């Protein structure tokens, strides 16, 4: 996996560049959170002094901006940043507590034939909703059905990615499979899939080739893609997936299981 970590480092370098450019641009909703989360993920996977500094700066900037409102676009990322860079700022810890509360309010997804059929053939909104719940609240069911759901989501992701503009949806699905350890064999495939989408400059994301982006628009477009790719890579490569780190100690007396 050394090649994958080198690619993470390249993404990290691109994010550092993006952080420098973002200082000059007016803050957009969601951009601070995405930037801080991307840098925290890159620093967690491919530790490096410059990345560490950039990740700390981005996390503190996010906390200081006053942008972390309960339903705002930075709230979720802020909770996750708090998990990767604990103790950085009280505002981030508050966001993490809100994330835990949201997770506790949900029921786990039951792995079954019906869920697998939705994963394979349901519309995109239904599959996305299923993934949101599975990631936050977990997946219930025996090992066989959990693996079956993992296979179904992986297959749906690979199928979706054959259509233009569906790679982000595919990464979302693969991330759940990795985060909830539904199908251990899918981890290597996820890493291979995400790496194939990376651009030469380290960023992720592509529009139809005739659409050439530049300047701030380019940054705004590639940033969420790059963070999404790093999240998928993190959950496939790291010992513990991000959501489990963020929810750790959410239920007193329960330790997160390694699976």
């Amino acid at each position, binding site marked *: 996996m050394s090649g994958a970590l080198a690619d993470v480092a390249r993404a990290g370098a691109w994010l550092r560049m993006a952080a420098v450019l973002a200082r000059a641009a007016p803050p957009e909703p969601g951009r601070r959170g995405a930037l801080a989360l991307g840098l925290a993920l890159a620093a967690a996977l491919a530790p490096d002094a410059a990345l560490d500094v950039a990740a700390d700066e981005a996390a503190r900037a996010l906390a200081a901006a006053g942008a972390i409102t309960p339903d705002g676009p930075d709230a979720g990322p802020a909770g996750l940043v708090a998990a990767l860079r604990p103790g950085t700022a009280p505002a981030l810890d508050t966001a993490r507590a809100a994330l835990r509360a949201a997770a506790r309010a949900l029921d786990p997804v039951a792995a079954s*034939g019906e869920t*697998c*059929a939705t994963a*394979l*053939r349901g519309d995109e909104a239904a599959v996305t909703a299923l993934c949101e719940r599975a990631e936050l609240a977990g997946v219930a069911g025996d090992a066989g059905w959990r693996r*079956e759901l993992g*296979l*179904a989501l*992986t*297959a*749906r*992701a*690979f*199928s*979706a*990615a*054959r259509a233009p503009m569906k790679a982000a949806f*595919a990464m979302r699905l693969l991330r759940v499979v990795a985060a909830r350890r539904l199908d251990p*064999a899918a981890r*290597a*495939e996820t890493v*291979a*899939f995400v790496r*194939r989408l990376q651009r030469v400059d380290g960023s992720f994301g592509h529009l139809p080739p005739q659409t050439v982006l530049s300047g701030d628009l380019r940054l705004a477009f590639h940033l969420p893609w790059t963070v999404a790719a790093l999240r998928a890579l993190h959950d496939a490569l790291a010992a513990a997936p991000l959501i489990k780190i963020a929810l750790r100690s959410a239920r007193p007396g329960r330790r997160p299981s390694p699976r």
Partner: protein
Amino acid sequence: MEERARVGDGCWSWLTSQRDAFTPFREDDPVRPKRLLAYGELAGILGCCLRRGARGGPVAALTSFVDDGLDGYDWEAQALRGPAFVVALLTVARFREAAGGDPAPLRAVVARHLALGNVDALELAPYRMLELEHLLAANGLGAGRRSAYARRLRDALAPLRRSPSAFSAHDRYALTHLVFALCDDGTRDAEDVAPRRDVAMLRRLVALCARMALAEGALDVLAELVSCARHLRLDEPWLTDEAFAFAASAQDADGSIPTFREPPDVEDARFFQRYHATLMWAHAAT
């Protein structure tokens, strides 16, 4: 199980009703090469069914139809026109043997091509070369070709050693044909002829590609993958039930299952749009 039986019955019924369209031995047929291919594929699938012991009504009727037609065609002349035709010859020879006939004359034509070096000079896709090697062995013509088989197997597996997210449609068919050859169409364990690690990789690929085909509604390759899953002894009743339910929902009232598009001006376009998927689902259900 109900849908599986319904799909199978419908497919065999339609195939039986299409005997004229499968007949390649007619004068001035503008689509004879395509019809010959369809006839060869029908013979191949019937041979599989017969070897697995399925000799019921529609299989028996179609077997008689194909077997009756074999002697009215100069297979050797066809092979002289194109050496790659030995693959079809070997398929038809196996069918003839499974149907209780004498495959020796057909095998003698292939033996002649082997002796002349024509077979080893063929340039086909790696999975097709493995298929050829498998058919040579299955027809008793594989003596002294063990190292060739091992090399063909290695070459056929090489393009599949990557994430299925990067597979093309062609790769999926390469996968199914490779599994059919290794499992001798369901009559042997793949681990008898391939390393266990490679068979485990193939099981994983078949499981994923079948689900991808189901997600995409790719009916034709889905049928082949369902058969592959059975040949590799993947115990997946959920997948099988979902696949047959999907096939049943796509099946026409006449029993056929549409897939490939043919230009509407091609003679027998409707037949050519349907025969392959229908044949594959008939096989998967049997």
